[in-house]
């Protein structure tokens, strides 16, 4: 097959098959370069993988991103502190609650704002609900990438929908919640809402049992995902990987335990760890984490005290934190999400920087994919759990 001449060349580099001479290629054979994406069914957004294939085995993989870059950090530096709050929803648009919380946390650190008890509980509840709906849709997408046509995904989305309904009745929006404020939350939760949330949480383990019975020990799923895309703990630590991807390699690092931010030290929950660091571990760790999240939610929903939902002394308008810097981080569903802020005493942050877990977890993609087949690359990417809104910002 000769290189095709008629492809557009300016916007997109031309992908040609290399003639012999590529190192390691067998005499008379050619390696094939395939550009997976940016329009590909399983790149989870506008993301591209330039893959070099020997047969179906990957010999080189270059992740290409930036298609969704929209100047998030610079825009945040030219608007007020509060003005960026709804914009953080759009980072990882699956998990707006945790994005809000991480940003609020760093501003609270910067300005030294106290958060009332009730607000802390609300934050834990919404964050854990966010984790549930993120993980549940992730495992649905992952199994979909393995070729289980829609069924597990639809089951997962049925559960996610219940949680999104809760968010909607709480904040008015299903995904772009814009719910947290510096020193608390935007509005209070009602007793009704807590009851609703309790019923959702109580029903959740049944769904997990059903889902696991459906697919977790399926022969095909195990054959597809075990010993695939192995990540060594040393590399994971070196690369700064965090979240379920890191814990699947066996490294015990969960910010909810390590930092104990918010009021996580009050709740009983365990941190599941994997031993192999492969795709199956990443899948199972998320399932187990959901079971732990349910435990946290049960405790938090039962114990939530009365009181202020936002610190009445916290100023929203004309908010000027004192000069200084702060880094607030939380265990977002995808990993460590941090916001680094420098204040020069003006109403706008001097520097605003996001540590996006999706991007940093994505850096090890090639290491995991080398030597695997093209079909594995798809599920390895799926198991990292990226959202392009956060990778590109």
């Amino acid at each position, binding site marked *: 097959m000769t290189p095709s001449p008629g492809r557009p060349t300016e916007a997109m580099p031309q992908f040609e098959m290399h003639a012999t001479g590529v190192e390691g290629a067998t005499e008379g054979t050619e390696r094939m370069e395939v550009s997976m994406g940016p329009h590909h069914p399983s790149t989870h957004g506008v993301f591209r993988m330039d893959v070099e294939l020997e047969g179906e085995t990957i010999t080189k993989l270059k992740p290409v991103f930036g298609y969704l870059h929209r100047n998030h950090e610079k825009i945040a530096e030219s608007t007020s502190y509060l003005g960026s709050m709804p914009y953080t929803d759009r980072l990882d648009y699956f998990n707006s609650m945790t994005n809000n919380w991480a940003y609020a946390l760093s501003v609270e650190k910067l300005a030294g704002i106290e958060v009332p008890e009730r607000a802390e509980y609300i934050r834990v509840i919404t964050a854990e609900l966010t984790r549930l709906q993120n993980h549940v849709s992730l495992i649905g997408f992952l199994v979909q990438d393995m070729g289980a046509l829609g069924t597990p995904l639809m089951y997962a989305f049925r559960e996610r929908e219940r949680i999104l309904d809760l968010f909607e009745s709480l904040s008015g929006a299903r995904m772009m919640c814009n719910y947290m404020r510096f020193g608390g939350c935007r509005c209070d939760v009602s007793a009704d809402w807590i009851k609703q949330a309790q019923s959702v949480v109580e029903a959740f383990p049944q769904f997990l049992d059903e889902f696991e019975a459906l697919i977790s020990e*399926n022969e095909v*799923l195990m054959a597809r995902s075990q010993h695939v895309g192995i990540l060594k703990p040393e590399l994971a630590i070196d690369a700064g990987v965090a979240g379920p991807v890191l814990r699947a390699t066996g490294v015990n690092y969960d910010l909810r335990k390590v930092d104990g931010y918010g009021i996580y030290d009050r709740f009983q929950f365990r941190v599941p760890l994997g031993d192999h660091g492969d795709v199956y571990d990443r899948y199972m760790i998320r399932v187990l984490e959901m079971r732990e999240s349910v435990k946290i939610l049960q405790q938090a929903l039962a114990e939530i005290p009365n009181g202020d939902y936002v610190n009445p002394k916290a100023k929203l308008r004309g908010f000027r934190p004192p000069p200084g810097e702060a880094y607030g981080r939380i265990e977002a569903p995808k990993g460590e999400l941090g916001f680094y802020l420098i204040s020069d005493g003006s109403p706008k942050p001097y520097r605003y920087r996001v540590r996006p877990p999706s991007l940093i977890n994505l850096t090890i993609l090639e290491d995991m994919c080398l030597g695997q087949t093209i079909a594995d690359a798809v599920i390895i990417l799926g198991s990292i759990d990226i959202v392009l809104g956060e990778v590109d910002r």
Partner: protein
Amino acid sequence: MWFEELLIAIKHYLVLQMPGSLQPVGSAFLSCLPIMTSFGGLFALATLLERKMLGRIQNRYGPNRVGPGGLLQPVADGIKMLTKEDIVPKNADHLIHFLAPLGLLVSAMLGLSVIPFGHRLIALDIETGILFFFAVGAASELAIFMAGWGSRNKYALLGALRAIAQMISYEIPLILSALSVLMVVGSLSLSDVVQAQSGGIHTWHIFTPWGFLGCILFLISTLAEINRSPFDIPEAESELIAGHMTEYSGFKYALFFMAEGVAMFAMCALTATLFLGGYHAPFPILSFIPGPVWLFGKLTSLVLLFIWIRGTMPRLRADQLMEFAWKFMLPMSVVNLIAAGIWVALDGGVAAWISSGLLNFVAYFGWSRILSQASRFSPRTYRYAEEAGVSE
């Protein structure tokens, strides 16, 4: 049998109305017409059925907007497909690109010509019917490769390469498991195969040790032959967009789709013919119901089984699929062939039942045990971090 006789009488009447020189052609045309129309219609209904069933499996409604309960959805799809622009890539090999969907559909349709739909209701009653079926079925591999090669698209090429490897590998267990039936019946003609199962449900081949295993092997190979989930790796959507069909649009794409559907019906009809008594009723008392009804009933239940599998199973990887074919399907179909040989040698009866049943049973469980012990895949248990040992 009245229904079959009626159809044949109508055909003879129509043929006799034609001028003498046209009669052979007219006769062939009249034999083809019902097959092409009924399977075309069945395909339309099957797409709707598949989408509806998948919808129910997936906790949603499926198409329900066009016509009562979505019944007219296939018509809407057809109109949409026909009016879509037909795009041929600039660098594609136009002739091959054009011929591929036709070749696929023709080879699928030809297979139906040797299937007996009822007593004497067979378009092409040749002595080597099953040989013909597999021979034209093999042409579909060529058509798929033409599609992959002619499109000049890397995904299409990868898909076509996968398809060739997969279909050739699974053709062997497919034919070997069909061979067991032919050995016992002693004829390559599908009419004879059906006739051997005419005595009611207990004479069906699936209710013998070799027929049971053979039927399962045949069905699995069929899934691979027609590229259906969980063996749909040639067109694996999440990996290869649409495999060899990536560069097809409009009516050519519809032809591909239709060819796949017809190939599925043909394989299901062959399964029913070989193992499930073909057009015969399960109990002789029910034989007043026409043969084609029984055959289509059996065919549809097999299609439903395929849809069910599609709604539940993830997809294997290409190399694992090959491994399954060569390490499990092939040995098992050879063992099954031996079991069928024992059956023939002992001429049926209790001794044949016990010996061939035992052989298959031991071979299946023994071999799967050996394979599963060698397998690296197993359910896992997970540990939890201790409270104190928080490390950074």
